[in-house]
């Protein structure tokens, strides 16, 4: 299974080029937003602004949709465009059918941990404020978990199977596994697999109660304990296909969840999902090797249960461009082998390291690692296309 295109919406803008710029430019402070539950106090959030999700052409038929669905549709559309595959790019004319008959060959899988929770709480507030007879039907329709996936398929004229996968820690990994199964079964020729999360006051409150907000707005991914989180929001979509193409990013070689035999040989880089969403992230130390560089890009987009998708996008970009992107935050109290520059020196080699024959610039295999609070592990292996 190959990544043929990537679309992304995050706090620093829209599009894979924008994400690449963020990887090159490094860390920037998150926005400070007022929160209703903390009087005279602000909270750091990596928030997507309204300008980023204003697309008059694509969203013309989506005036009722919420922010979550808009982020999903824009990034899914950009993933199709980024693939450069003829007949798959959405038409600039919103009145015409976007993809036409090709739409029947595309499936949609949306991964999300909290889904449309903002609209769900709006809906509950409406019941409390006005009674169940006076609840807005639009709020209700946007509050259902499959709304974003439905908007993606209807706006982009996709007629393949459409599904939302929700699993607290590994939504994205399970969505990727499902995509692989659909492609192997030939249910679809292409799958748009994406992750989307939205920030809201209720979620912010829960984060503040259960986790430790970063006092300076910086997630420190290599601290492990204590951890610091800064809520993020956004969407990443990947266009997946069986065969690689001219513009393809990389191959998804394997997706492992739970108990499995470790597969370390030849890994050039570990990308870890540490972002303060676990109170103690020391468990990640089990997967880190002194022979393999480690990176974590959560300080660029924020803490999210589906942050794996953003880290995978970073890994896919590195494999396509054959270029390392330095860690955005370099605090390293445990002295682990973190990626500092864009051209790291060759390691000693051996199990899990760079082989002696590997050229300095070759990046062959990247492993994206995530742990749950129960120390359950998931890994996505990305390999360079040949």
């Amino acid at each position, binding site marked *: 299974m190959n990544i043929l295109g990537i679309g992304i919406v995050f706090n620093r803008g829209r599009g894979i080029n924008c994400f690449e710029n963020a990887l090159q430019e490094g860390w920037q402070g998150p926005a400070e937003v007022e929160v209703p539950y903390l009087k005279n106090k602000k909270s750091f959030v990596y928030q997507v602004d309204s300008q980023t999700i204003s697309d*008059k052409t694509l969203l013309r038929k989506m005036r*009722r949709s919420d922010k979550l669905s808009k982020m999903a549709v824009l990034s899914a559309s950009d993933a199709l465009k980024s693939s450069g595959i003829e007949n798959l790019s959405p038409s600039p004319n919103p009145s015409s059918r976007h993809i036409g008959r090709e739409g029947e060959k595309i499936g949609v899988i949306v991964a999300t941990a909290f889904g449309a929770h903002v609209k769900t709480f709006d809906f509950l507030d409406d019941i409390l404020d006005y009674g169940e007879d006076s609840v807005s*039907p*639009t709020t209700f329709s946007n509050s259902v978990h499959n709304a974003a996936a439905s908007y993606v398929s209807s706006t982009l004229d996709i007629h393949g199977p459409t599904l939302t996968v929700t699993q607290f820690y590994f939504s994205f990994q399970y969505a990727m596994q499902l995509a692989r199964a659909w492609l192997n079964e030939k249910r679809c020729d292409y799958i748009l697999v994406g992750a989307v999360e939205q920030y809201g006051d209720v979620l912010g409150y829960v984060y503040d109660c259960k986790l430790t907000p970063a006092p300076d707005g910086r997630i420190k991914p290599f601290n492990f304990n204590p951890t610091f989180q800064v809520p993020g929001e956004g969407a990443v979509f990947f266009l997946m296909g069986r065969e690689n193409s001219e513009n393809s990013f990389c191959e998804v070689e394997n997706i492992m969840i739970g108990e499995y035999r470790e597969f370390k040989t030849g890994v050039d880089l570990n990308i870890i999902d540490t972002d303060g969403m676990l109170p103690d992230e020391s468990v990640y130390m089990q997967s880190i090797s002194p022979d393999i560089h480690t990176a974590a890009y959560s300080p660029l987009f924020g803490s999210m249960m589906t942050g794996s998708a953003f880290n995978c996008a970073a890994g896919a970009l590195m494999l396509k461009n054959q270029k390392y992107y330095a860690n955005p935050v370099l605090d390293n109290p445990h002295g682990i082998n973190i990626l500092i520059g864009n051209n790291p020196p060759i390691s000693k080699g051996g199990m899990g390291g760079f082989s002696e024959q590997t050229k300095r610039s070759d990046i062959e295999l990247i492993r994206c690692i995530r742990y749950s609070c129960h120390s359950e592990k998931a890994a996505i292996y990305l390999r360079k296309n040949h």
Partner: protein
Amino acid sequence: MQKTEAQQLAQIRKDLKEMLVRDLSLEDIKPEDIKDNEILFGNGLGLDSLDAVEIVVLLQRNYGLEVKDMEKGKEIFYSIDTLARYIQENRKNVS
């Protein structure tokens, strides 16, 4: 000072236009762009059946009015002016 009926009607029209633009997420339309006699559905402002349900809810929330007879609803929902007159004649309490 007590408002005249004409002033009250003008105020309801203004409130309705703001409410429709805000609560129906009418992008690229300002409240002042909506004419008092402009047809709200179909070829006019372009509202659809889901907007009609939304307006029923908005009338209930903001003016305590229930529109259950949809045949009558067609006349009431014809324009801002017909909506405003219906509200002025029937409202129980204004929020």
